[in-house]
């Protein structure tokens, strides 16, 4: 018998207790640091001496830095072209690998395989593949008679290089599309078949409209992730170069903070990243409301 030293918790209260580690983790590891980084934008702080109040000077300092505008442009450029390509690729692959066939499981696994590689290993592997002199990609291009570019040694080709290597890591979008394709009721397809719709018609009038919400959500999720998390790849592959051609906002924030110990200025740049993320989220919200996409079911796929 348990002694009633305290009132035993009800089932509901115990359920909430299960959520406690999650909540306290969020407060300590996300909410607190996020607020701290927000506030730091108004101070001069080098992690060694106590912070001193600067008002809005950090914002002025960051936004007048000519690298700042460049980094925002680069960040956006590395989202606008690659992300739709990645989502389209994942979608088309999901359609191709939708129905049963020989070795289907292994084919699907191969598509997902590059996505399980550690980012650093994946980036360094591509540093080799896209090496201008010995890299197998350029040897392949040469063999089929295309003049190979110098990739990360060329300001014109550094961004396309990053785009190219990002196209192999689309496993997550691929899985989400596969799952969503299975949710299309087969009765709808059968009806279209009976009505004599051919393959192309079924794709454009049936599959694409039904999949549009998922594709949209994937696009926005990928945009946010690419905007925020492209740091490791760029840090190892180009370090932001050549001539700042791949210098993005996360690179700038890292260098201002951990490089120059200007944590206040880094935080001011962070505000811009938040603002860009906020714009993407707002657009997503508005379109989702327009299309009447439920805020419960679909969002969880993502």
């Amino acid at each position, binding site marked *: 018998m348990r002694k009633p030293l305290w009132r035993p918790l009800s089932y509901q209260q115990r359920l909430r*207790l299960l959520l406690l580690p*999650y909540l306290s983790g969020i407060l300590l590891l996300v909410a607190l640091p996020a607020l701290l980084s927000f506030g730091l934008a108004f101070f001069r702080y080098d992690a060694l001496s106590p912070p001193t109040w600067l008002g809005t000077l950090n914002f002025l300092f960051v936004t007048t830095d000519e690298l700042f505008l460049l980094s925002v442009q680069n960040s956006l450029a590395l989202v606008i072209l690659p992300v739709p390509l990645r989502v389209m690729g994942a979608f088309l692959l999901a359609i191709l690998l939708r129905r049963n066939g020989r070795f289907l499981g292994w084919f699907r696994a191969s598509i997902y*395989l590059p996505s399980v590689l550690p980012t650093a*290993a994946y980036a360094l592997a591509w540093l080799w593949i896209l090496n201008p002199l*010995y890299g197998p990609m350029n040897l392949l291009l040469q063999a089929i008679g295309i003049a190979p570019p110098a990739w990360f040694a060329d300001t014109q080709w550094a961004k396309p290089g990053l785009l190219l290597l990002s196209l192999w890591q689309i496993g997550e979008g691929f899985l989400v599309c596969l799952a969503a*394709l299975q949710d299309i009721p087969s009765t709808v397809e059968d009806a279209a078949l009976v009505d004599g719709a051919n393959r192309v018609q079924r794709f454009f009038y049936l599959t694409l409209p039904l999949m549009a919400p998922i594709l949209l959500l994937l696009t926005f999720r990928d945009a946010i992730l690419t905007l925020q*998390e492209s740091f490791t790849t760029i*840090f190892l592959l180009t370090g932001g170069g050549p001539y700042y051609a791949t210098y993005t906002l996360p690179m700038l924030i890292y260098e201002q903070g*951990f490089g120059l110990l200007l944590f206040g200025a880094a935080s001011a740049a962070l505000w811009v990243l938040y603002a860009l993320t906020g714009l993407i989220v707002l657009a997503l919200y508005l379109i989702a409301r327009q299309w009447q996409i439920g805020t419960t079911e679909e969002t969880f796929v993502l």
Partner: protein
Amino acid sequence: MEIRDWRFWARLAVTAVFLLPLLWLLTAALHPVGRPLPTTLSLSLDFTLDNFRRVWQLVPLGRFMLNSLLVVILAVPITLVVSSWAGFGMAQLPKASQRRWIVLSLAVLMVPGVALWASRFFLYTRLGLYDTILALIAPAFMGSSPFFVLMFYRAFRRIPVAIYEAARLEGAGVLASWWQIGLPIARPTAVGVALLTFVLYWGDFVSPLLYLRSQSRYTLPVALQLLQQLTASDWPLLMAGVLLATIIPVGLFLLLQPYFARLGG
């Protein structure tokens, strides 16, 4: 072969394209030591394992690998427990509370990782976690990502409420019904979350870069950067290191492949 088999060949071609980078990585890592790299596209059948031995001599790779293994051995189970608890709790709360937790989780998902770098650095320094393995696995104590919590929530919500009610009437507590009813039904989700968590921590480059100082605590991703700086343009050597950092997640994925193959029937 039938003409209808075009789909099979298209699938084969796409798969080949997706495996090509890995094939290139493999051939570079097995390239004989001292032989000049080819400047035309060629397939040599002369392979060597010497590069792996050289990597081992150059950096304490065994140490780095152990560190990485320790990180995932701690982070994956902690993440599974915390995120499945949270998902389990969420799934049985009243509708209005569920909605609040969902909104909170989505909001946390929108916070850029970059935003937390510096302030977590101050926090870990203050708490004495700087330069310890705890700084690498700390996020596991919040389930690593709200994404995982939502995945579990989705899985647990599919279980009819009546089943939980029945268990409760039989005297099962919250933990018992989580362990005996929830988890067995949500096993595919648990496997998925486990694999994603493994990949997340195994590949984490930023945390060791920012929160570690001692080389003896380095994990594989930062060890690769070290190797990159040491080897200059000895590509076969670097690729051997890259391959070693890649083998374990790839092997694990292939082991769990049946779970993914069933996705979508």
